[in-house]
């Protein structure tokens, strides 16, 4: 076991999979010689050669389209979209093509590719380096969407994604690449090495897709979160002194309905937290699902704490970012009802 940052854990996942399976290769903008702008692919080109880890032209739909062709051939490409915000040019390839090859060919062709993309705000990245477009993928039949919140999960989940026979969108919360972030932007960020979840085995292990993780047990209210927001929700629960159960969803599609239902049945209250804009966001799906399944267990209306329905503002990002005080307010509101 070694203490790893999320970046190191992701690098280790790729390293393990490239070692195990010659069909695994990775490419994207600046991914090869430079090792990725966030260094997730560092040393891989040196170790596995330029044919297995290489730089791509600045053309996201080309990167996605080429990966689909490779996957259809029988390889397991892992592509990096440098920022999730740059995914839009690749969207047609992912939605109309990768997601549907299996269905439209009645199982004749498949596209087992993994699309990695750093997402989320809180890094002074402005409107084009801060977005959380997960709902654009969770709405698409044929895709799976995965978002880790710790180094340990990041590695185990990425390995599962690469082994999946269906296309997976793997979104990396870049705000917590180097250390967990609790949402108090004026506090010193502790490095991952101070946290148990940075203890990551060097070798191969998997965390199954579709299984959520109860990261804090509680009786009073269920807080549903993923990615960076898991840490912000945990900080909010501590700060508020509320006996909250915090669930890290890990996989958004297929979501772990059983864990969510069991928790809501116990607490009767729910707060959903995500960074993405609110309207038609993934929280809306969670909220509707809980309403359909747990209505008679609910003791208060479900609350959402999210980014606002505006483009991501550069200098006002701390006004935009869901912070512990906003989550605490929502928790108090559901506790009062």
């Amino acid at each position, binding site marked *: 076991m070694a203490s790893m940052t999320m970046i190191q854990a992701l690098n280790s996942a790729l390293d393990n999979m490239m070692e195990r399976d010659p069909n695994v*290769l990775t490419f994207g903008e600046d991914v090869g010689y430079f090792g990725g702008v966030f260094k997730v692919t560092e040393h891989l080109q040196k170790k596995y050669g330029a*044919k297995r880890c290489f730089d*791509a*032209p600045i*053309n996201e*739909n*080309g990167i*996605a*389209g*080429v*990966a*689909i*062709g*490779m*996957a*259809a*051939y*029988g*390889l397991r*490409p892992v592509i990096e979209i440098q920022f999730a915000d740059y995914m839009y*040019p690749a969207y*047609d*390839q992912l939605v*109309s*093509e990768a997601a549907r*090859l*299996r*269905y*439209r*060919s*009645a*199982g*004749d*062709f*498949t596209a087992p590719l993994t699309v990695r993309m750093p997402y989320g705000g809180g890094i002074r990245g402005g409107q084009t380096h801060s977005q959380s477009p997960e709902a654009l993928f969770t709405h698409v*039949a*044929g895709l*799976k969407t995965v978002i880790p919140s710790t180094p340990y999960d990041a590695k185990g989940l990425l390995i599962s994604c690469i082994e999946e*026979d*269906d296309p997976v969108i793997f979104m990396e919360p870049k705000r917590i690449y180097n250390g967990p972030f609790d949402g108090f932007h004026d506090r010193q960020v502790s490095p991952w090495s101070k946290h148990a979840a940075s203890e990551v085995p060097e070798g191969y292990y998997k965390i199954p897709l*579709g299984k959520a993780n109860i990261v804090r047990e509680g009786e009073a209210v269920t807080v549903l979160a993923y990615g960076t927001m898991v840490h912000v929700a945990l900080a909010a629960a501590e700060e508020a002194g509320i006996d909250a159960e915090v669930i890290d969803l890990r996989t958004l*599609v*297929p*979501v772990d*309905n059983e864990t969510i239902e069991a928790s809501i049945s116990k607490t009767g209250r729910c707060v959903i937290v995500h960074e993405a804009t609110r309207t038609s966001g993934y929280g809306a799906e969670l909220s509707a699902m809980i309403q359909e399944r747990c209505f008679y267990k609910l003791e208060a209306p479900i609350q959402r704490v999210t980014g606002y329905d505006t483009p991501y503002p550069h200098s006002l990002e701390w006004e935009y970012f869901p912070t512990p005080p906003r989550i605490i307010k929502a928790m108090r509101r559901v506790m009062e009802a």
Partner: protein
Amino acid sequence: MDDMSSRKSNALDLHIPAPRARPGDKPDFSGWSFPEPGATPKPDIDESAVEMRDFAYGLIRVLDMEGNALGPWTPHISADDLRRGLKNMLLLRAYDERMHRAQRQGKTSFYMQSLGEEAISIAQAMALAPDDMCFPSYRQQGILIARGYPLVDMMHQIYSNARDPMKGRQLPVMYSSKKDGFFTISGNLATQVPQAVGWAMASAYSNDGRIAAAWLGEGSTAEGDFHAAMTFANVYRAPVIINVVNNQWAISSFQGIAGGENTTFAARAVGYGIPPLRVDGNDFLAVYAATQWAAERARANLGPTMIELFSYRAGPHSTSDDPSRYRPADEARQWPLGDPIERLRDHLVSLGEWSEEQHRAAQEEAIETVRAVGREAEKVGVLGPGAAHTRESMFEDVYKDMPWHLREQRDEQGEA
């Protein structure tokens, strides 16, 4: 900004390209130049893209309009293979004709013929190896026919009946057959071109010997995917052939709207450093030879080739289209490069390997084959009320293993 007085004396003006002839006009092809058959030299397969610039503006032709094969591009192809090519084109035309009619009779929702372009899919499929992977657009059904995919299975899909290999999920003409090297077709245009490049890159990565070929219409070259594909193909020297079928019409928009007014589509390759070939698409021998040249080049690890296949879409875009509303009614018949079937027939006749009688017999045989297969397929069923496939099957193949939410939706629907 509508204030006319603000117009400058040197006012700019917007140009909207328009074809030379519209309904009621005489067809006018005077804008085109048609180099003589046999006049274009044949470069070595390792010729540099820079040296091949002129091929983007010329036109490789082998057959003259009397059926003689001329010049260095004349391929070595046996009379048996030529007859096979001709018979496949006749079969394709008969199949298209019957399926087009079936749509008119309400037996299917939609159909797209390849009338006038039969040489492209048939000759190219014959020039490729049987296990090369094709990433077709929706007018290359001839590839499946040339590769021996059962005609009856194609019809089952057209009719969305119980034996439809795509289980009633795909538009009728959007076939798929991995074992025949025929990639599943998308309705979103040009998306298959970067995929073909990726497949070719994967083949090279795996030290395989197979190459990929993609087809798109001249209209779709305006899509970003085409340019992405050209970039990646050139950068990584992918063993791929990118075929642009210039049939002049993208539904009702003439090729000038796609950017072909002042240049050729093959010329796009020049900027990417990819060798261009511009070929008479109605000349079976020229299409075969150009494809063979590009395939040899790819197999020799020399990278991609782009081929513009200059043709004319003689039929409507689809059964939902009426070309007489946007082009002269007799324009297709006036196309100076003629009909691909008649031209190959004339060639075989001139070789003494074919006769008018044999041709008529082969034509009738093709029609009879299609008729017999049609009866067989229709016996299984045609598109109609009460879909042939079970409701449960709708939920399969979305993912490898059905997740809980789809299982629930499937079961919920079953209760309704």
